[in-house]
């Protein structure tokens, strides 16, 4: 098939592209220019903050003997990922920009463009497995559980999965991918993994947000509503956070306090004991299915609420357009805006954005 390999400049996408070539596909490499930030203000400098990544991707494509292009998605990225990130924070939620990028850019804007231009599939270096069954294509966890990225791919729909290709999914470990890159003579073999949010190059998310969202002094409340301190901007807090709370008054029981809730509307932060972070229920209206929809409105599943969290057995029910999930044992600190991905064993059922959480510990009277 005709494959468009999305090449970030990292080792995973380079090896994925190499395997696509080996599999006999007709492969074209594309690097996405996503950022207009960088060292220069000149209009012609678009994508220049990633100039080294673009160069690494190009050199990998050269090595693999494939054509290579840079496609500019910086406007879409700004609108759909960066602006979304800021407005979610402004609304007191904790978004995952990488998921948004998969949902709106890599497997939407890029995939659509690839199909329009005559390609059959987009190939990426994600660690996840696709399984074709009589009921359609399924998305499963990667065989290397430590690297498994099925969580961030949970937003993919049946149509998107049909045009997706993950050559690394069945690799037992990342070390093998690096070794393979070395063997193939790819210069990115030992390039460090990227961890931070790509559009915040210095990694200072709080500072970056303060700049975008604006920081205003506000009150810190306990669960009863009593003011126990002040803060320099609610955006700097996320549910479950313990550090950075400068509270003059110690808790009555002397135990550490954690952020339980961020209320952007009145710029307040609610804190309380660790136990109060326990979450008995999450719900949301924005859900999608990775392939076929569940056959009944109530089903049991495993639910994962963070990229690196363990899945928790749970029961799910869909009622009046709202998907509600109750874990068998409470979650530990959930923030609205996070994505919950539902699994049936290794298979991704679907995902939703958490709009509402219910604490397992009622507020004391």
């Amino acid at each position, binding site marked *: 098939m005709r494959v468009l390999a999305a090449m970030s400049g990292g080792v995973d996408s380079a090896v994925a592209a190499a395997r696509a070539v080996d599999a006999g596909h007709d492969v*074209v490499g594309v690097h996405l*220019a996503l950022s207009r930030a960088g060292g220069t203000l*000149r*209009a*012609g*400098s*678009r*994508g*220049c903050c990633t*100039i080294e990544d*673009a160069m690494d991707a190009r050199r990998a494509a050269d090595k693999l003997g494939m*054509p290579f*292009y*840079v*496609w*500019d998605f910086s406007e879409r990225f700004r609108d759909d990922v960066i602006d979304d990130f800021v407005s979610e924070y402004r609304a007191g939620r904790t978004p995952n920009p990488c998921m948004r990028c998969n949902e709106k850019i890599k497997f939407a*804007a890029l995939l*659509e*463009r690839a199909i*329009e*231009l*005559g390609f059959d599939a987009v190939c990426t270096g994600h660690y996840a497995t696709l399984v074709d069954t009589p009921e359609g294509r399924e998305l499963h966890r990667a065989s290397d559980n430590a690297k498994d990225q099925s969580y961030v791919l949970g937003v993919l729909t049946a149509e998107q999965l049909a045009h997706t290709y993950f050559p690394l999914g069945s690799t037992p470990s990342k070390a093998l991918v690096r070794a393979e890159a070395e063997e193939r003579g790819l210069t990115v073999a030992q390039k460090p993994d990227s961890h931070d949010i790509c559009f915040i190059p210095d990694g200072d998310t709080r500072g970056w947000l303060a700049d975008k969202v604006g920081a205003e002094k506000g009150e810190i409340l306990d669960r009863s509503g009593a003011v126990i301190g002040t803060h320099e901007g609610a955006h700097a807090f996320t549910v479950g956070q313990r550090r950075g709370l400068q509270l003059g008054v110690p808790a009555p029981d002397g135990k550490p306090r954690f952020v339980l809730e961020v209320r952007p509307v009145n710029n307040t932060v609610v804190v309380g004991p660790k136990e109060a972070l326990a979450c008995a229920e999450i719900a949301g209206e924005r859900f999608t299915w990775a392939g076929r929809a569940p056959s009944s409105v109530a089903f049991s599943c495993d639910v994962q609420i963070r990229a690196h969290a363990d899945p928790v057995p749970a029961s799910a029910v869909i009622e009046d357009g709202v998907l509600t999930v109750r874990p068998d044992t409470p979650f530990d600190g959930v923030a609205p805006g996070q994505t919950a991905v539902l699994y049936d064993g290794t298979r991704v059922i679907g995902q939703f954005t958490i709009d509402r959480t219910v604490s397992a510990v009622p507020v004391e009277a």
Partner: protein
Amino acid sequence: MQVYLDHAATAPLRAEAREAWLAAQEVLGNPSSIHGAGQAARRLLEDARDELAQVLHCQPIEIVFTSGGTEAANLGLKGLWWARAAGTQAVVLPDGEHHATLDVVGWLASSDGAEVRAVPLDGLGRIDVELFAAVLPGAALATAIVANNEIGTLQDAAALASAASRAGVPLHLDAVSALGSVPIDFAGWRGPGSGGGGLAALSVSAHKVGGPVGVGAAVVSRHATLTPLVHGGGQQRGLRAGTQDVAGAAAFAAAATAAEAERESEGRRVAELRDRLVDGIRRSVPEARLLGDPTNRLPGNAHVLFPDAAGETLLFLLDMAGIAVSTGSACQAGVAEPSHVVLALGLGERAARSVLRFTLGRTSTAADVDAVLARLPEAYGRAVASGARSGHAS
């Protein structure tokens, strides 16, 4: 079959240039050395300077070899700026110039207080000489492109130079795209008695006419005063220090001479092919529009607006089909910006992202044109469909 219709980006190396380069590499010696070996190298270098001076209609001493057109333009503009007359601060800059001049003037403005006096282009990309002349008085210097590298429109270089001469303002001409297609007449354009004003510097590049990349020249009038960019051993009138590239100069001179010898005949042949290409495009894509001056333009240049397609998408699809074209100036990141030249024609940003530049040259054939015409309709159809879904350039 691979079809190369991007001769304006770089042209295939001419056999004469390759031979001259290889022959000169056999000669050991630094042309600035006093001994016989140095003299042998110097002879080749000065032969090349003489030869190029004939093509450009200037005096050999006025030729300063550089690393290319961009360096020549930098020397011309910054050199004139730093040596400008006391009390002058303005730079006359028409719209739609090449980045090699546009960005130099932009830098002088942001870092050294230059005041930019813009001159608009008309709908065909022409500089109105009267508007140009009107903003000259009191300026430190002026610049203009002889033939636009994107849309191919030719300017009246003689008239621009004589306006600068009358105003007593030194003028830099960017003749990089013009060389080989337009007769370059440095002495004639400068005219007698221009003094410090009028045509002062002119930039050319070897690889646009079949010479090697990495060689160019600034023609610097013997009457002009310029501050050098590169200081060192004082070579080339002290305007461009550094050991001189004998082989590069020899290859440039050979390429320029060969291009000049066949300029008229090749111009006719290539223009005919170009017209055939444009007619064919119009037949298969009736909404396509030739931009730039329809008659007074570079013979190999077909700059076409495809209103419903993104130029970037068309470029990609044609490349997949083995046809190399351009959306305008090549750019480092590989990402296409809307063309500032198309914007200068008064067309919007959508149009500025919907153009393709086909440039034919010495090795272009009727088969190349036929190949484009055979593959364009499908690529265009796909690009339009793609643009419709993704809201192209909206």
